[in-house]
């Protein structure tokens, strides 16, 4: 078994790997690097705004930093970290599979993602990073007003990034539908997997509008088409429509995996099953679905018809229902269990606090007059940072601690972990809470600097101090995990007595995950039966994993899985070069590289599982 699933040694083994765990780890390291970059950008922004009339960076650089901070955190950090790193590493382990449904496509997702990140950051290295905000509104983003390659880095980079996320979404859905261990019917699937499933579907239907929007923008910028200018029959609002049809589901794409992580951590430390398990599963799917019907609340101040606004305001309020179901389920699970407040659960506590705060300020914006009064002020910045940093990133930090023993086989340092929680909690509150007040006092978002005497000085200084406290907290987490990786106590397979399948395998898991494919009879298989009874299939003949029916998970067939392959990285490289050529307006050369990419795809599929 070890031989069949053995990795090729050395660097080449990593470059050609199709093991979901290795790909997950590569995603983790890459996204953390981008997180660091996005964090430095945030600190520079806050330093610039610490005092009135600041001149830490020039206005042009500030625009680039602001845009890159948003683009990085959303497209290069949160989404690839939640789906790429957590999803990739955990989903097959949680459902009792030996790999993802399409292992090579999985590798392709990662390399395309990495290429898109490097592509966008090349813009920053050349001093021509995207600079029209992460939402990149036209007409500012058109060639007349932004003649450099800045916006082209944005549009082409996001198309590449979207291709990566689409491939990942297809892979997650197919994996969750096909590869669940025998007996894991839909109603026994871990809630984290429900969250990933909801996100994958949301990505599948939300990304095309963004891709098309970016294609339109590039056609207009590079070839002189007319989609967004009124003079030739276009409409600047078209950009906003298509962007937010993507952009609002995106918010739930960001926050749903966090919900999934919360629903993994809470039962373990409360030592009981999740309260209202099916309701929470349904709520996760419903949030992703309703997320598509609320996009125009980003456009309340653009002069749309009142009827349209009211529809979207009502839909926006409706999202509260599934969100609240989950909040109550989390709280009830904790209070009705025997909670043990270890670091991961503390981060989830922080997450709930921030999510309620950010949710409440969000609901205010569903009221149209309130939105029209406060749109584009720091109140909005406060709101979405509580949601995106407080609610989406806190569970990720908790999740880093929670699964660290599983991934490395070692324990983190509990004392320092708790200290890091209090530091990040204090830092987050101090950074983002005063923004509410600054916003109510009229401070507009995206400003480069401000005059003294407007009553904003103290709040801005507090926010900047908070940002550095927060950064210190994050560094403590990084240091804790690094030191524990080297010197931590041995963790064993199941240090927290978690309920889901990933805790039944050794830490770190072997290349084949499960020596014996488990048979599942409940949502928390690790809790209900001793290990000896859990067994089922062995499958030690080849590189194989079982597949089961979509709903009931009856065993259906045995799949021969592809092992390592050089094609994904080659294909990603060719596509990336093609995009660089598009950026440089060398259409023919780009076409040549796309042709080579097609040939690569042909070669990729020459290897058949039976051979």
């Amino acid at each position: 078994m070890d031989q069949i699933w053995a990795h090729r040694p050395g660097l080449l083994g990593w470059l050609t790997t199709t093991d979901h765990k290795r790909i997950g780890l590569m995603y983790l390291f890459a996204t953390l690097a981008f997180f660091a970059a996005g964090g430095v950008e945030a600190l520079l922004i806050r330093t610039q705004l610490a005092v009135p009339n600041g001149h830490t960076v020039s206005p042009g650089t500030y625009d680039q930093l602001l845009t890159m901070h948003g683009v990085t955190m959303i497209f290069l950090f949160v989404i690839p970290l939640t789906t790429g790193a957590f999803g990739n590493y955990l989903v097959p382990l949680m459902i009792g599979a030996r790999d993802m449904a399409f292992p090579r496509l999985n590798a392709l997702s990662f390399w395309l993602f990495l290429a898109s990140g490097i592509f966008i950051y090349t813009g920053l290295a050349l001093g021509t990073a995207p600079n029209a905000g992460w939402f990149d509104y036209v007409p500012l983003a058109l060639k007349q007003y932004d003649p450099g390659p800045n916006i082209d880095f944005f549009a082409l980079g996001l198309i590449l990034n979207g291709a990566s996320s689409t491939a990942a979404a297809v892979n997650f859905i197919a994996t969750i539908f096909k590869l669940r261990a025998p007996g894991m019917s839909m109603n026994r699937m871990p809630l984290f997997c429900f969250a990933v499933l909801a996100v994958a579907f949301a990505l599948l239907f939300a990304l095309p509008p963004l891709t098309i929007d970016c294609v339109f923008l590039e056609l207009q910028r590079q070839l002189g088409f007319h989609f967004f200018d009124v003079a030739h029959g276009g409409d600047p609002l078209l950009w906003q429509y298509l962007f937010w049809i993507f952009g609002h589901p995106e918010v739930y794409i960001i926050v749903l995996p966090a919900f999934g992580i919360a629903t993994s951590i809470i039962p373990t430390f409360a030592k009981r099953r999740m309260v209202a398990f099916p309701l929470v599963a349904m709520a996760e799917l419903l949030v992703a679905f309703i997320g598509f019907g609320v996009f125009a609340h980003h456009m309340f101040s653009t002069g749309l018809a009142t009827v349209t606004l009211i529809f979207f305001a009502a839909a926006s309020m409706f999202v509260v229902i599934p969100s609240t179901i989950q909040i109550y389920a989390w709280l009830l699970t904790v209070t009705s269990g025997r909670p043990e407040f270890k670091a991961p659960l503390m981060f989830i506590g922080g997450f709930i606090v921030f999510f309620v705060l950010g949710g409440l300020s969000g609901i205010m914006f569903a009221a149209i007059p309130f939105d029209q009064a406060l749109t584009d002020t720091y109140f909005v910045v406060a709101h979405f940072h509580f949601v995106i940093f407080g609610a989406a990133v806190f569970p990720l930090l908790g999740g880093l601690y929670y699964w660290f023993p599983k991934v490395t086989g070692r324990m983190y340092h509990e004392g320092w972990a708790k200290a890091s929680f209090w530091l990040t909690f204090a830092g987050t509150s101090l950074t983002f809470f005063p923004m509410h007040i600054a916003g109510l006092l009229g401070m507009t978002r995206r400003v480069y600097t401000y005059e003294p005497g407007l009553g904003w000085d103290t709040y801005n200084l507090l926010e900047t101090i908070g940002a550095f406290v927060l950064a210190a907290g994050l560094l403590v987490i990084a240091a804790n995990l690094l030191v524990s990786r080297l010197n931590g106590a041995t963790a064993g397979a199941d240090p927290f007595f978690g309920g889901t399948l990933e805790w039944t395998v050794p830490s770190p898991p072997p290349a084949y995950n499960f020596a014996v494919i488990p048979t599942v009879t409940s949502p928390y298989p690790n809790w209900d039966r001793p290990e000896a009874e859990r067994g089922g299939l062995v499958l030690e003949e080849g590189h194989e994993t079982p597949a089961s029916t979509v709903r009931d998970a009856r065993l259906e067939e045995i799949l021969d899985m592809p092992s390592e392959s050089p094609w994904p990285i080659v294909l990603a490289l060719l596509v990336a070069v093609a995009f660089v050529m598009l950026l440089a307006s060398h259409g023919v050369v780009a076409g040549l590289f796309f042709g080579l990419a097609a040939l690569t795809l042909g070669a990729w599929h020459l290897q058949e599982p039976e051979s």
Partner: protein
Amino acid sequence: MSEVVLPRERIRPSGWWGMALFVATEATLFGTIFGTYFYLRLNTVYWPPPGIAAPRPLWPLVLVAALVSTSPVLWAARRAALRGRVGRARAGLLLALAVQTGYLAFHLLLFAQDLDRFRPEDSAYGSIYFTMLGAHDAHVAAGILLELWLLLRLLRGLTRYRLVAFQVTSLYWNFVNVLALLVVVVQLAGAR
């Protein structure tokens, strides 16, 4: 309850799921393009703008009928393949491939003729018109490449993997054919 491996009548292979989901996201992509077409149209008084004739129905309709006719051909070819009659499968694929390649060539010719009459740089109408046709042609070209690859593989006989490839390719082509029909309908009905 014992878990026995029962032979099932219709197992959906992973590849089918992959293509079905890909088709779903591609359908959204084209939905966005169609939506944009009508959005721009409703924002404009003259559609198409003065000086540009509305597209004429004859050739697009004839061409799309020819293209759609490849769906049953592919279906029959796949049936033959499932029964192990690889010769018939190859012949069917070749026929479909010929019709589709002819379609693409003819379509690109019309595309070039249209470019002589008006340009995408002239107006929003031209922009969305040519973008939609271009996106459609790109999908036809991708389908032709898929099928060409499949045909080359079938020259070396049938395997289970190639049968899945066949299933996936036909699914993709059915999707492209529906799209072709929608593209024609949108462009003819939209420019009334």
